[in-house]
């Protein structure tokens, strides 16, 4: 791809998210979402093979449908209430439409099935953009607009955590596993959204950091399925030793960063007297934990038989930049002691 065109597209990605962040008007927010969708399509088909084109087509169709639903909901809202403002109270009917449109856009559970299919067709860098940067704009809208109905979000959230854990169980492809992990994490965010939006923001940031480190680690290993993951100890021994901790942090085990959002969400749900929902979410997190554990088992906890020539690649310096991975991995392992500071900083 021509570097000028690449710059133009990356600028479009930035512009779309910034437009949605800055807008208080539904039409402008919708425009930002559309710019985002359009700008990533050529990046998806960058390595031009049929699977990538298929993924781009699927992504375009779902995102166009979601954006059309959001636009239809917001025009209906303008028709009924006479204003376009995002932060003003919204009529319940368009509120549900916009909510479902945004859920389709980020891939919450009943509308989730495009996400693993699309992510599987992309290379790891574009997949990283898709599962981190592309979530920001819809979440900015979800955090801003006022809803009165909590049951829809709770249902979406519980279904997402369940299906995100369940769907990932039998996968051997890393990108699909990461997609299901994304669905499960987004479910936790949707679950707490009606009660404590700052916690949603905190969970989103933590999820972005952890998934960034996982994508970068897989990219350094050039591995896209579990089999190639088993050879990573010969390529990068130190990273391979840390990878199970990063995976368990995604799963939400206590001394690691990933425990923080789950802990705070469960506590808040219990305070809202939603103990059944909290129990349900915690139990479905076990399903996710199972496949994270299986990944770490294949990657680190076993050593396959090998010859001496096969274990030399770690001596060669890597051509990829490792600084972002180092920062992301450190953050995704060691942030739990900063929980009070994080909760104090992220007040909405």
């Amino acid at each position, binding site marked *: *791809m021509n570097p000028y*065109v690449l710059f*133009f*597209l990356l600028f*479009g990605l930035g*512009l779309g998210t910034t*437009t949605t962040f800055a807008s208080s008007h539904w039409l*402008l927010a919708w*425009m930002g979402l*559309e*710019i985002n969708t*359009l*700008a990533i*399509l*050529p990046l998806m*088909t960058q390595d*031009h093979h*049929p699977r990538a*084109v298929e993924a*781009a*087509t699927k992504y375009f169709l779902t995102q166009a449908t979601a954006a059309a639903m959001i636009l239809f909901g917001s025009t209906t809202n303008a*028709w*009924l209430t006479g204003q376009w403002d995002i932060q003003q109270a919204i009529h319940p*009917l368009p509120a549900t439409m916009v909510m479902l449109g945004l859920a389709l856009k980020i891939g919450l559970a009943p509308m989730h099935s495009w996400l693993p299919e699309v992510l599987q067709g992309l290379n790891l860098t574009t997949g990283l953009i898709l599962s981190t940067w592309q979530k920001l704009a819809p979440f900015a809208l979800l955090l801003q607009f006022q809803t009165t109905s909590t049951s829809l979000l709770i249902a979406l959230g519980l279904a997402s955590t369940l299906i995100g854990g369940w769907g990932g169980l039998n996968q051997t492809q890393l990108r699909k596993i990461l997609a299901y992990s994304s669905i499960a994490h987004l479910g936790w965010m949707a679950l707490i959204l009606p009660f404590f939006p700052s916690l949603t923001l905190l969970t989103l940031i933590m999820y972005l950091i952890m998934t960034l480190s996982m994508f970068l680690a897989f990219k350094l290993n050039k591995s896209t399925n579990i089999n190639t993951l088993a050879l990573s100890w010969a390529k990068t021994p130190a990273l391979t030793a840390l990878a199970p901790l990063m995976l368990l942090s995604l799963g939400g085990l206590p001394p690691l960063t990933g425990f923080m959002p789950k802990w705070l969400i469960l506590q808040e749900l219990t305070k809202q007297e939603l103990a059944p929902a909290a129990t349900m979410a915690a139990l479905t997190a076990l399903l996710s934990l199972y496949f994270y554990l299986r990944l770490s088992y294949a990657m680190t906890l076993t050593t396959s038989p090998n010859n001496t020539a096969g274990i030399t690649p770690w001596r060669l310096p890597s051509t990829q930049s490792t600084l972002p991975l180092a920062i992301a991995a450190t953050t995704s392992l060691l942030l739990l002691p900063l929980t009070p500071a994080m909760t104090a900083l992220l007040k909405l």
Partner: protein
Amino acid sequence: MTYMMLLCLVGLVAGLISVASNPSPFFAALGLVVAAGMGCGVLAGHGGSFLSLVLFLIYLGGMLVVFAYSAALAAEPYPEGWGNRYVAVLVVAYVVSVGVAFWMFRGEWYEFSWVPVNELSEFSVIWGDTGGVALMYSSGSSMLVISVWVLLLTLFVVLELTRGLSRGALRAV
């Protein structure tokens, strides 16, 4: 006038049903043209004649491209008509669902009309929709700049997706 509006509204719904029910791109494009024309008729009937003219021209241009593209992509010798069993079942299903939706929401939120724009037209020099165009170019100029930028971006996106011989993205594999 009421009969004309009734014709336009029924034609709009019928056009949308024909788009949704027929699998053949030829008839779907035809249904889209009918729906667009009838929708513009509704707009013109409510006083938005300039708006409906602009919309119809843009739709017509888009429809030409869509029709040419779908005819080139899927040239079927025997496309399915609306009388075929499979399509007719879909048509009946959509008509029934429109009827059910009408019956459920009757007398509620949709029964407004496009009154507020021309409510005080007796006292105004400018007609509602032409005034809207002027407002769009004066107050909404920064929005227009963003829209132009988006169109430029779309041009690059489409070029990247479809350029060259082997790089056609929308191609029957």
